[in-house]
């Protein structure tokens, strides 16, 4: 029997009789997309300002998810571990800032040290201190978790590390829920600075306290702007760190091939710890911003945002930093639009349905590299 030439072998699968029927599945997906676009377009035409407001709230959510998703995607990229405890680290960040602001009044320390400082500077420096403290606490927590729980299991089967991650997640949640730690209740969060809201209608105006938003106006708060700026800044910083520095090169090498990286003189354990620390620092920042934006925190409320951020990372292609960003924005929009036009409890279902559909079309996420075949 004559062997077909190699070029023919690769297209052989496409020549099977069923391959021509791919249009059924593609048509199904296209119909689904048209339906979604139709619903969105109709709503946009009916009430453009409401639509704009929903998109803005989706942006706010998406940029917070992006901050958490970075930690997931970096850790997964480097040790192939779904770090379920990351969402709880994020919540710890929110709680640290809560205690710093409410119990210790850390956000007004510049006023106490320098009495005649302008109030604006007091707020800026004070808030930055709170954020920095949260980031440092989260970093040390994540490094501790990594050293105590994950490092001993690096050569064990991957499932053991995953179970450990779930265990750490349980521990953080329920230890935090003890009465002498954080208590299991929802706690109203005191913001370190005042919320300022502007509305856009015939130009930009500031919303005075007690004033009603005019009909058909788009409102923007300073929280939204801070979240977007912080998230973009972190994104740029991280890109610089990974692409331009020696440490970033070591991280990429470790993620590519651990034993070889070790042979090349890279301190693999140090790099892994560093990755955990960086991810946790951003999660801490995200936690503070999340608490400021949604102003109610509990130890158990870190699970779902964490999970959704993880889903965002998967959507964008896990291991890819811009992918995590795109996925998070998509996730935020999906959630906000569902909340606005379908119903609030359905938002998780829609978010995860989108995940499943995207994975079916692009199995490794939007920006993910195709999976290597098992040797």
């Amino acid at each position, binding site marked *: 029997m004559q062997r077909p030439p190699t070029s023919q072998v690769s297209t052989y*699968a*496409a020549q*099977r*009789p*069923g*391959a021509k*029927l*791919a*249009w*059924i*599945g*593609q*048509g*199904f*997906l296209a119909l689904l997309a048209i339906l979604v676009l139709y619903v969105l377009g109709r709503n946009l035409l009916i009430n453009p300002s409401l639509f704009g407001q929903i998109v803005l709230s989706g942006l706010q959510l998406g940029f917070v998810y992006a901050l958490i998703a970075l930690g997931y995607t970096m850790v997964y990229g480097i040790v*192939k571990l*779904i770090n379920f405890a990351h969402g709880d680290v994020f919540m710890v960040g929110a709680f640290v800032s809560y205690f710093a602001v409410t119990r210790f009044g850390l956000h007004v320390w510049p006023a106490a040290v320098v009495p005649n400082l302008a109030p604006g500077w007091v707020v800026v420096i004070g808030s930055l201190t709170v954020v920095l403290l949260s980031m440092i606490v989260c970093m040390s927590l994540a490094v501790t978790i990594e050293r105590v*729980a994950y490092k*001993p*299991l690096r050569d*064990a*089967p991957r*499932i*053991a590390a995953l*179970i*450990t991650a*779930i*265990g*750490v997640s*349980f*521990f953080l*949640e*329920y*230890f935090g*829920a*003890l*009465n002498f730690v954080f208590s*299991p209740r929802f706690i109203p969060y005191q913001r370190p600075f005042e919320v300022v809201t502007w509305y856009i209608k015939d130009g930009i105006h500031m919303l005075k306290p007690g004033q009603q938003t005019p009909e058909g106006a788009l409102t923007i708060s300073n929280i939204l702007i801070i979240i977007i700026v912080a998230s973009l800044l972190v994104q740029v910083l991280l890109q610089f760190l990974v692409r331009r520095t020696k440490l970033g090169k070591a991280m990429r090498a470790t993620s590519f091939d651990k034993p070889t990286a070790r042979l090349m003189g890279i301190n693999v354990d140090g790099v892994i710890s560093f990755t955990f620390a960086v991810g946790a620092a951003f999660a801490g920042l995200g936690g503070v911003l999340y608490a400021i934006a949604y102003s109610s925190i509990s130890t158990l409320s870190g*699970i779902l945002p964490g*999970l959704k951020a*993880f*889903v965002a990372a*998967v959507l964008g292609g*896990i291991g890819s930093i811009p992918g995590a960003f795109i996925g998070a924005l998509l996730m935020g929009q999906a959630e906000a639009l569902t909340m606005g036009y379908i*119903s609030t*409890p*359905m938002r*998780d*279902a829609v978010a*995860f*349905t989108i*995940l*499943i559909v995207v*994975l*079916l079309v692009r*199995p*490794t996420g939007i920006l993910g590299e195709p*999976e290597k*075949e*098992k040797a």
Partner: protein
Amino acid sequence: MDFNLGFLLISIFKIAIVLAYLYGLLTVLGHPSKKVKIGGVIAAFAIIQIALVPFGEFQVLADFDKGLLIQACTMTMVALGLNLIYGFNGQFSLGQWGFYGIGAYTAADITYRWTNGDARGLLVGGLAVTLIGLMIWLVAKLVRVFKGMPVLSQFTLYLMGTIVAGAIAVVVGNLVSPVFTPLLGTISAPGPLNNIVALQIVFLLAALIAGAFAAEVSFLFGLPVLTLGSDYFGIATLGFSIVVQTLMVNSDTILPFPEMKGGRGMIGIPKLDATIWFWAFLFLLLIIIVMRNMIYSSTGRAITSVREDEIAAKAMGIDVAYHKLLAFVIGSLFAGIGGAVYAHYIGFLSPGTFDFLVGFNPLIIIVFGGLGSMTGTIAASFGWMFFLEGLLRVLLGQMGTEAPTWRFVLYPITLLLLMLVRPQGLLGNVEWGFLKRPASPARPDRNAAVDVAASAGQ
């Protein structure tokens, strides 16, 4: 602060007794004589029955322990299903809890409607499951004609078939149900069909329908999703269990099931207090036997080979996609039946029970017991259930109202320590008694084969 040592010792003793009981049951099942097998099963059933009966003041197993025992049985069913999917077939699934929830809600809805004078639940459910099954079979024949059809297109065809079958079932079921209504009566005046014996039959049917329904959903879901790589499959199944839970929360608003009462939880499910242990035991036994026989059949070997190396399995002529799907569907069937039993034990279902965080428990159990070890899974399920509740009871004496929280502080620490000490699980690959790999009498002795070869060479 008095440490309740006596209670702790009794708890440990009870766990040991339960495990010894299971070991005895498995040993008896492994006995070649059929009489011993049947006798042993009846004896095992009777032992628990007697242990549950109070002799004056003394009772071996309290009502609380009975509840634990039944919950451990349902947990074993779920965990065995997950072990088939993950332990034996290597597909990292986090969606088992979703199928458990589907089974629980389906069965509960059927029996709830039946006791409230509405036969539509059973009729529509039964018809839908049968018709969807038929439709899947028909579409599968159609799909087989077009070799190399993309999975997404196959999925679309199956989905259309399922929707058509479901619609037919709803229409026909609603047409037939008025015949049953006078026989069922109302809650205040139950008709001739609305009694305890009929309820047992309805429960049996409901459990089977629930299992079959969970299996069909898992088929539809698994068909496209099983093409994903291991971690992506895990995340997609996690998404599935969250979608299922969200639908449960919205069951009275988005789904047309007002009796499920959405997030407030479904109440008024008929509890089978007198017979629930019988059903739990029966289904558990059946599932263990089915699973054991399947694992040691050629299908089971094919399923295991997919876990070991997909490419090698494919090279050996094993249909990898088919065996992945088969393991996934059967695992979900077990979970669905487990859910049905659980719903009729507890009598109350709330979406909080089917939270994905709780859904990690079967995974934790099978990793504890050892992936790919049926004995390990069964022992770990019972041990885990009694350990957690025993821990709670011990803590209740010390901590008062904060005990449930403290339990989940200590539990992860135990988890971490066990993972550090034995990352491969308590039993690894060891099987006991009935679950041991049977010696195959058909295989000729290796030395004899050498002799034959040698004599042939001369």
